[in-house]
């Protein structure tokens, strides 16, 4: 793995030390940027599902899913504080930066996990609550505690955690899991590897320093770039599946196909990038575009669902 000798790791605060984390620091434990994506994809799943839910209960469903996602983020930050402190991208998080203690973070994460699952179960239905509980367990235990430090395919399998929100949103309305909601799951699941490996390419030194076996550090840049292209093709195909299956319109299919072609184009630019390139501009562009892609796909699905629901027109 890539290692550097000139990096001096900061020290964690001693146990029992009084810390000065404010409300903003506790909010940061919830990984608000990840949470915003979870909220959005869950909302799309909820609005696409056949059937109706009272708007207030729909709001509570999305709120519970958001809090559950935040709880798993807090548990991740509690467990990963020892490696977060070694990486530039994560060293300023509240726990490694010494603003909130690890114990308080664990308690916060566990409390919010139980609270969000109970709220969803009592107020919406127990299938969606069970799925939320499984998602938190999968992210905090299967991905964070097990896969992340043990295999270069960590984010391939771990990506399932981030892909569950539309299934949960769908289950909130229908109290069931359907092939349509699994198709939404597949879009995020297949998108995750290309998104994270683009990041891992230009943050390989950080991951190497922390000993996290990301694909570029274990298999090398060339193999990672090839995998990125393969997953970008799979992502682009999965993007048009809702139209092929008939639960999204032709207009959505055209938008998804164009977004998918652009995704593959950005991935090919990464593949063509010379090995050992220091600036990694194509990888940074792919990382940025991948976020835009997912937002674009789910916005198009949302528009499609709203037009169909409120105007009865399939576009």
């Amino acid at each position, binding site marked *: 793995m890539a290692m550097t000798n000139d990096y001096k790791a900061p020290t964690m605060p001693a146990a029992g030390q009084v810390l*000065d984390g*404010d*409300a903003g620091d506790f909010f940061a434990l919830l990984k608000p940027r990840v949470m915003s994506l979870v909220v959005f994809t869950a909302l799309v799943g909820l609005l696409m599902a056949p059937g109706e839910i009272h708007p207030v209960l729909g709001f*509570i469903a999305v709120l519970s899913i958001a809090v559950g996602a935040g709880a798993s983020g807090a548990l991740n930050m509690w467990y990963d504080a020892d490696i977060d402190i070694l990486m530039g991208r994560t060293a300023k998080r509240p726990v490694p930066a010494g603003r909130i203690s690890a114990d308080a973070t664990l308690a916060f994460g566990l409390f919010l996990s139980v609270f969000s699952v109970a709220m969803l179960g009592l107020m919406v239905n127990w299938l969606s609550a069970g799925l939320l509980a499984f998602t938190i367990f999968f992210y905090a235990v299967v991905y964070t505690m097990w896969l992340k430090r043990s295999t270069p395919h960590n984010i391939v399998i771990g990506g399932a955690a981030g892909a569950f929100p539309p299934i949960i949103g769908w289950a909130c309305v229908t109290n069931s899991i359907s092939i349509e909601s699994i198709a939404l799951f597949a879009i995020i699941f297949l998108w995750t590897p290309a998104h994270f490996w683009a990041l891992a390419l230009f943050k390989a030194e950080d991951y190497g320093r922390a000993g996290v076996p990301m694909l570029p550090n274990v298999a090398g840049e060339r193999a990672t770039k090839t995998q990125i292209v393969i997953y970008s093709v799979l992502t682009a195909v999965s993007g048009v599946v809702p139209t092929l299956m008939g639960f999204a319109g032709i207009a959505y299919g055209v938008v998804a196909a164009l977004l998918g072609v652009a995704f593959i184009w950005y991935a090919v630019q990464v593949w063509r990038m010379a090995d050992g390139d220091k600036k990694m501009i194509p990888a940074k562009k792919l990382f940025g575009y991948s976020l835009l892609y997912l937002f674009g796909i789910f916005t198009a699905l949302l528009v499609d669902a709203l037009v169909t629901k409120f105007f009865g027109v399939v576009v």
Partner: protein
Amino acid sequence: MDHVELTERQKKARRSRSVALGIVLACLVVLFYVVTIIKVGPGIFDRPM
């Protein structure tokens, strides 16, 4: 008996946490009230003594 003297920064952080917690609890009270009305409806007042 030892006392922990909080610094101004720690006092400010504690105040911030207390205000946030208060707001969250107040929102939950409203939320639980509204959900009770939605799920049970006006029938919640119509119980045998």
